[in-house]
Protein backbone atom coordinates (compact mmCIF):
# COMPACT_ATOMS: atom_id res chain seq x y z
CA UNK A 1 0.00 0.00 0.00
CA UNK A 2 1.36 3.42 -0.90
CA UNK A 3 2.15 5.75 2.00
CA UNK A 4 -0.40 8.28 0.78
CA UNK A 5 -3.17 5.68 0.82
CA UNK A 6 -2.05 4.56 4.25
CA UNK A 7 -2.27 8.11 5.56
CA UNK A 8 -5.78 8.42 4.15
CA UNK A 9 -6.76 5.16 5.86
CA UNK A 10 -5.38 6.52 9.12
CA UNK A 11 -7.61 9.59 8.86
CA UNK A 12 -10.65 7.51 7.91
CA UNK A 13 -10.17 5.34 11.00
CA UNK A 14 -10.84 8.44 13.11
CA UNK A 15 -14.40 8.53 11.75
CA UNK A 16 -16.99 6.61 13.75
CA UNK A 17 -20.13 5.22 12.08
CA UNK A 18 -22.33 8.09 13.23
CA UNK A 19 -19.74 10.58 11.95
CA UNK A 20 -20.10 9.27 8.41
CA UNK A 21 -23.86 9.57 8.76
CA UNK A 22 -23.53 13.13 10.06
CA UNK A 23 -21.23 14.07 7.16
CA UNK A 24 -23.68 12.57 4.67
CA UNK A 25 -26.50 14.59 6.27
CA UNK A 26 -24.43 17.79 6.06
CA UNK A 27 -23.63 17.20 2.37
CA UNK A 28 -27.28 16.43 1.57
CA UNK A 29 -28.45 19.52 3.49
CA UNK A 30 -25.98 21.67 1.55
CA UNK A 31 -27.04 20.24 -1.81
CA UNK A 32 -30.71 20.61 -0.94
CA UNK A 33 -30.21 24.22 0.20
CA UNK A 34 -28.27 25.04 -2.96
CA UNK A 35 -30.91 23.47 -5.16
CA UNK A 36 -33.91 25.06 -3.48
CA UNK A 37 -32.40 28.52 -2.93
CA UNK A 38 -30.50 28.97 -6.18
CA UNK A 39 -32.56 27.28 -8.87
CA UNK A 40 -36.00 27.81 -7.38
CA UNK A 41 -37.35 30.60 -9.58
CA UNK A 42 -36.97 29.87 -13.25
CA UNK A 43 -39.12 32.32 -15.20
CA UNK A 44 -41.90 30.86 -17.33
CA UNK A 45 -43.77 33.81 -18.79
CA UNK A 46 -42.93 37.21 -20.24
CA UNK A 47 -45.71 39.63 -19.43
CA UNK A 48 -45.92 42.67 -21.70
CA UNK A 49 -47.96 45.70 -20.65
CA UNK A 50 -48.84 48.86 -22.60
CA UNK A 51 -50.30 51.80 -20.71
CA UNK A 52 -50.59 49.52 -17.65
CA UNK A 53 -52.77 46.90 -19.38
CA UNK A 54 -51.48 43.43 -20.18
CA UNK A 55 -51.22 43.06 -23.95
CA UNK A 56 -49.42 39.71 -24.10
CA UNK A 57 -48.31 36.80 -21.91
CA UNK A 58 -45.60 35.02 -23.86
CA UNK A 59 -44.36 31.58 -22.77
CA UNK A 60 -40.57 31.51 -22.49
CA UNK A 61 -40.13 28.13 -24.17
CA UNK A 62 -40.10 29.35 -27.77
CA UNK A 63 -38.68 32.32 -29.63
CA UNK A 64 -41.02 35.13 -30.67
CA UNK A 65 -40.96 38.81 -31.60
CA UNK A 66 -43.80 41.11 -30.62
CA UNK A 67 -44.67 44.61 -31.74
CA UNK A 68 -46.30 46.91 -29.17
CA UNK A 69 -47.41 50.40 -30.01
CA UNK A 70 -47.44 53.21 -27.48
CA UNK A 71 -47.85 57.01 -27.44
CA UNK A 72 -44.52 57.77 -29.13
CA UNK A 73 -44.00 54.81 -31.41
CA UNK A 74 -43.43 51.09 -31.63
CA UNK A 75 -41.56 48.95 -29.08
CA UNK A 76 -40.23 45.54 -30.15
CA UNK A 77 -40.17 42.75 -27.55
CA UNK A 78 -38.06 39.69 -28.27
CA UNK A 79 -38.44 36.34 -26.52
CA UNK A 80 -36.03 33.42 -26.68
CA UNK A 81 -36.13 30.18 -24.69
CA UNK A 82 -35.57 31.16 -21.04
CA UNK A 83 -35.09 34.89 -21.62
CA UNK A 84 -36.65 38.05 -23.02
CA UNK A 85 -35.61 41.62 -23.84
CA UNK A 86 -36.75 44.88 -25.29
CA UNK A 87 -35.14 44.73 -28.75
CA UNK A 88 -35.92 48.31 -29.72
CA UNK A 89 -37.81 51.26 -28.34
CA UNK A 90 -38.41 54.85 -29.48
CA UNK A 91 -37.61 56.33 -26.02
CA UNK A 92 -34.82 58.96 -25.89
CA UNK A 93 -32.62 57.33 -23.26
CA UNK A 94 -33.00 53.65 -24.18
CA UNK A 95 -32.78 52.40 -20.59
CA UNK A 96 -35.03 49.39 -21.18
CA UNK A 97 -33.09 48.38 -24.29
CA UNK A 98 -29.70 48.73 -22.58
CA UNK A 99 -30.88 46.40 -19.81
CA UNK A 100 -30.42 43.56 -22.27
CA UNK A 101 -31.71 40.05 -21.71
CA UNK A 102 -33.85 39.44 -18.64
CA UNK A 103 -33.37 35.94 -17.23
CA UNK A 104 -34.62 35.96 -13.65
CA UNK A 105 -38.16 35.62 -12.43
CA UNK A 106 -39.45 39.03 -11.33
CA UNK A 107 -37.00 40.97 -13.48
CA UNK A 108 -38.53 43.90 -15.38
CA UNK A 109 -37.60 46.34 -18.12
CA UNK A 110 -39.62 49.55 -18.20
CA UNK A 111 -39.80 51.81 -21.24
CA UNK A 112 -41.47 54.74 -19.51
CA UNK A 113 -41.77 57.23 -22.40
CA UNK A 114 -43.63 54.69 -24.54
CA UNK A 115 -45.51 53.23 -21.51
CA UNK A 116 -44.42 49.67 -22.30
CA UNK A 117 -43.14 47.23 -19.69
CA UNK A 118 -41.74 43.74 -19.92
CA UNK A 119 -41.66 41.51 -16.85
CA UNK A 120 -40.73 37.87 -16.32
CA UNK A 121 -42.90 35.71 -14.10
CA UNK A 122 -42.20 32.35 -12.52
CA UNK A 123 -44.60 29.83 -11.06
CA UNK A 124 -44.88 31.75 -7.82
CA UNK A 125 -45.04 35.50 -8.13
CA UNK A 126 -42.04 37.20 -6.56
CA UNK A 127 -41.77 40.64 -5.09
CA UNK A 128 -40.55 43.39 -7.34
CA UNK A 129 -39.00 45.04 -4.31
CA UNK A 130 -39.30 45.11 -0.54
CA UNK A 131 -38.68 48.26 1.46
CA UNK A 132 -38.17 48.62 5.17
Amino acid at each position, binding site marked *: MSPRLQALRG*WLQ*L*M*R*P*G*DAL*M*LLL*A*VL*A*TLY*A*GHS*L*WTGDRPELAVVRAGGKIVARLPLDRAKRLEVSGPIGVTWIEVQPGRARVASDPGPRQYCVKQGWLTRSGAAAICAPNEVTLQLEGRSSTYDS*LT*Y
Partner: protein
Amino acid sequence: MNAPKILTADASDHRVARYAAAAIVLSVAEAAIPTPLPGVKPGLANIVVLLVLLRHGWSDAAWVALLRVFATSLLLGQLFAPGFFLSLSGSLVSLLVLGAAVRLPRRWFGPVSLSLLAAFGHIGGQMLLARLWLVPHEGLWALWPVFSATATIFGTVNGLITAGLLAARPEEEKT
Protein backbone atom coordinates in the same frame (compact mmCIF):
# COMPACT_ATOMS: atom_id res chain seq x y z
CA MET B 1 -13.96 45.26 58.73
CA ASN B 2 -13.94 42.28 56.42
CA ALA B 3 -10.73 40.48 55.78
CA PRO B 4 -9.49 41.11 52.22
CA LYS B 5 -10.65 38.41 49.84
CA ILE B 6 -7.82 36.69 48.05
CA LEU B 7 -8.55 35.09 44.70
CA THR B 8 -6.18 32.37 43.67
CA ALA B 9 -6.19 30.69 40.29
CA ASP B 10 -6.54 26.93 40.58
CA ALA B 11 -5.43 24.27 38.13
CA SER B 12 -8.62 24.55 36.09
CA ASP B 13 -8.13 28.31 35.66
CA HIS B 14 -4.60 27.78 34.37
CA ARG B 15 -5.88 25.10 32.01
CA VAL B 16 -8.65 27.33 30.63
CA ALA B 17 -6.16 30.17 30.16
CA ARG B 18 -3.71 27.92 28.29
CA TYR B 19 -6.36 26.54 25.95
CA ALA B 20 -7.92 29.99 25.42
CA ALA B 21 -4.49 31.37 24.47
CA ALA B 22 -4.13 28.62 21.84
CA ALA B 23 -7.64 29.33 20.49
CA ILE B 24 -6.93 33.08 20.33
CA VAL B 25 -3.69 32.54 18.41
CA LEU B 26 -5.48 30.33 15.86
CA SER B 27 -8.31 32.88 15.45
CA VAL B 28 -5.99 35.83 14.99
CA ALA B 29 -3.84 33.87 12.54
CA GLU B 30 -6.78 32.86 10.40
CA ALA B 31 -8.10 36.43 10.38
CA ALA B 32 -5.16 37.15 8.07
CA ILE B 33 -6.48 34.73 5.44
CA PRO B 34 -8.42 36.64 2.78
CA THR B 35 -11.96 35.30 2.35
CA PRO B 36 -14.58 36.05 -0.29
CA LEU B 37 -17.34 36.39 2.32
CA PRO B 38 -17.24 37.22 6.02
CA GLY B 39 -18.01 33.96 7.80
CA VAL B 40 -16.28 31.72 5.29
CA LYS B 41 -13.21 30.68 7.27
CA PRO B 42 -11.76 27.47 8.71
CA GLY B 43 -12.70 28.16 12.34
CA LEU B 44 -9.55 26.49 13.66
CA ALA B 45 -10.29 27.71 17.21
CA ASN B 46 -13.11 25.17 17.25
CA ILE B 47 -10.49 22.42 17.37
CA VAL B 48 -9.35 23.78 20.73
CA VAL B 49 -12.92 24.14 22.00
CA LEU B 50 -13.68 20.53 21.01
CA LEU B 51 -10.51 19.26 22.66
CA VAL B 52 -11.45 21.02 25.91
CA LEU B 53 -15.03 19.73 25.66
CA LEU B 54 -13.90 16.13 25.28
CA ARG B 55 -11.12 16.32 27.85
CA HIS B 56 -12.51 18.59 30.56
CA GLY B 57 -16.24 19.01 29.98
CA TRP B 58 -18.67 21.61 28.73
CA SER B 59 -18.16 24.48 31.18
CA ASP B 60 -14.41 24.66 30.54
CA ALA B 61 -15.17 24.55 26.80
CA ALA B 62 -17.65 27.41 27.19
CA TRP B 63 -15.05 29.49 29.03
CA VAL B 64 -12.47 28.90 26.32
CA ALA B 65 -14.92 29.63 23.48
CA LEU B 66 -16.19 32.89 24.97
CA LEU B 67 -12.78 34.12 26.11
CA ARG B 68 -11.63 33.45 22.55
CA VAL B 69 -14.46 35.57 21.09
CA PHE B 70 -13.80 38.54 23.38
CA ALA B 71 -10.00 38.46 23.23
CA THR B 72 -9.84 37.98 19.47
CA SER B 73 -12.23 40.88 18.86
CA LEU B 74 -10.19 43.04 21.21
CA LEU B 75 -6.94 42.17 19.42
CA LEU B 76 -8.41 42.78 15.97
CA GLY B 77 -10.06 46.05 17.02
CA GLN B 78 -13.51 44.61 16.40
CA LEU B 79 -14.87 44.61 19.95
CA PHE B 80 -18.61 45.53 19.91
CA ALA B 81 -18.51 45.95 16.12
CA PRO B 82 -21.10 43.94 14.14
CA GLY B 83 -18.56 41.19 13.46
CA PHE B 84 -18.09 40.72 17.19
CA PHE B 85 -21.80 40.15 17.78
CA LEU B 86 -21.98 37.72 14.85
CA SER B 87 -19.03 35.83 16.28
CA LEU B 88 -20.59 35.85 19.77
CA SER B 89 -24.01 34.61 18.65
CA GLY B 90 -22.41 31.90 16.50
CA SER B 91 -20.30 30.81 19.43
CA LEU B 92 -23.26 30.76 21.85
CA VAL B 93 -25.47 28.69 19.53
CA SER B 94 -22.55 26.38 18.84
CA LEU B 95 -21.99 25.87 22.58
CA LEU B 96 -25.68 25.09 23.12
CA VAL B 97 -25.58 22.55 20.29
CA LEU B 98 -22.41 20.99 21.71
CA GLY B 99 -24.00 20.80 25.17
CA ALA B 100 -26.71 18.61 23.70
CA ALA B 101 -24.52 16.71 21.23
CA VAL B 102 -21.93 15.68 23.81
CA ARG B 103 -24.61 13.36 25.25
CA LEU B 104 -24.77 11.33 22.02
CA PRO B 105 -23.35 7.81 22.41
CA ARG B 106 -19.58 8.28 22.08
CA ARG B 107 -19.12 4.87 20.47
CA TRP B 108 -21.02 6.00 17.39
CA PHE B 109 -20.56 9.75 17.32
CA GLY B 110 -16.98 10.97 17.63
CA PRO B 111 -15.26 14.36 17.30
CA VAL B 112 -16.23 14.66 13.63
CA SER B 113 -19.95 14.66 14.49
CA LEU B 114 -19.42 17.19 17.26
CA SER B 115 -17.32 19.37 14.98
CA LEU B 116 -19.91 19.30 12.18
CA LEU B 117 -22.73 20.15 14.59
CA ALA B 118 -20.64 22.95 16.12
CA ALA B 119 -19.84 24.36 12.67
CA PHE B 120 -23.52 24.37 11.72
CA GLY B 121 -24.29 25.94 15.10
CA HIS B 122 -21.86 28.73 14.28
CA ILE B 123 -23.32 29.58 10.89
CA GLY B 124 -26.86 29.12 12.23
CA GLY B 125 -26.32 31.58 15.07
CA GLN B 126 -24.59 34.08 12.80
CA MET B 127 -27.22 33.91 10.08
CA LEU B 128 -30.03 34.27 12.59
CA LEU B 129 -28.53 37.41 14.11
CA ALA B 130 -27.62 38.80 10.68
CA ARG B 131 -31.16 38.22 9.43
CA LEU B 132 -32.81 39.71 12.54
CA TRP B 133 -30.51 42.68 12.97
CA LEU B 134 -27.95 43.50 10.26
CA VAL B 135 -29.65 42.59 6.98
CA PRO B 136 -33.40 42.26 7.61
CA HIS B 137 -34.13 40.86 4.17
CA GLU B 138 -35.06 37.37 2.98
CA GLY B 139 -32.46 37.70 0.21
CA LEU B 140 -29.79 36.98 2.82
CA TRP B 141 -30.70 33.28 2.71
CA ALA B 142 -29.25 33.10 -0.80
CA LEU B 143 -25.87 32.95 0.97
CA TRP B 144 -26.89 29.96 3.07
CA PRO B 145 -25.62 27.23 0.69
CA VAL B 146 -22.15 28.81 0.71
CA PHE B 147 -22.03 28.81 4.52
CA SER B 148 -23.48 25.32 4.64
CA ALA B 149 -20.76 24.01 2.32
CA THR B 150 -18.10 25.82 4.37
CA ALA B 151 -19.43 24.28 7.60
CA THR B 152 -19.47 20.82 6.01
CA ILE B 153 -15.90 20.98 4.74
CA PHE B 154 -14.21 22.69 7.70
CA GLY B 155 -16.43 20.93 10.24
CA THR B 156 -15.18 17.59 8.94
CA VAL B 157 -11.54 18.66 8.68
CA ASN B 158 -11.49 20.24 12.16
CA GLY B 159 -13.21 17.17 13.59
CA LEU B 160 -10.61 14.88 12.05
CA ILE B 161 -7.79 17.03 13.44
CA THR B 162 -9.42 16.93 16.88
CA ALA B 163 -9.83 13.16 16.67
CA GLY B 164 -6.18 12.85 15.61
CA LEU B 165 -5.00 14.97 18.54
CA LEU B 166 -7.12 12.95 20.97
CA ALA B 167 -5.86 9.68 19.52
CA ALA B 168 -2.27 10.87 19.95
CA ARG B 169 -2.88 11.39 23.71
CA PRO B 170 -5.89 9.20 24.50
CA GLU B 171 -5.42 9.08 28.27
CA GLU B 172 -6.84 12.59 28.52
CA GLU B 173 -10.21 11.90 26.88
CA LYS B 174 -13.09 12.20 29.31
CA THR B 175 -15.62 9.41 28.90
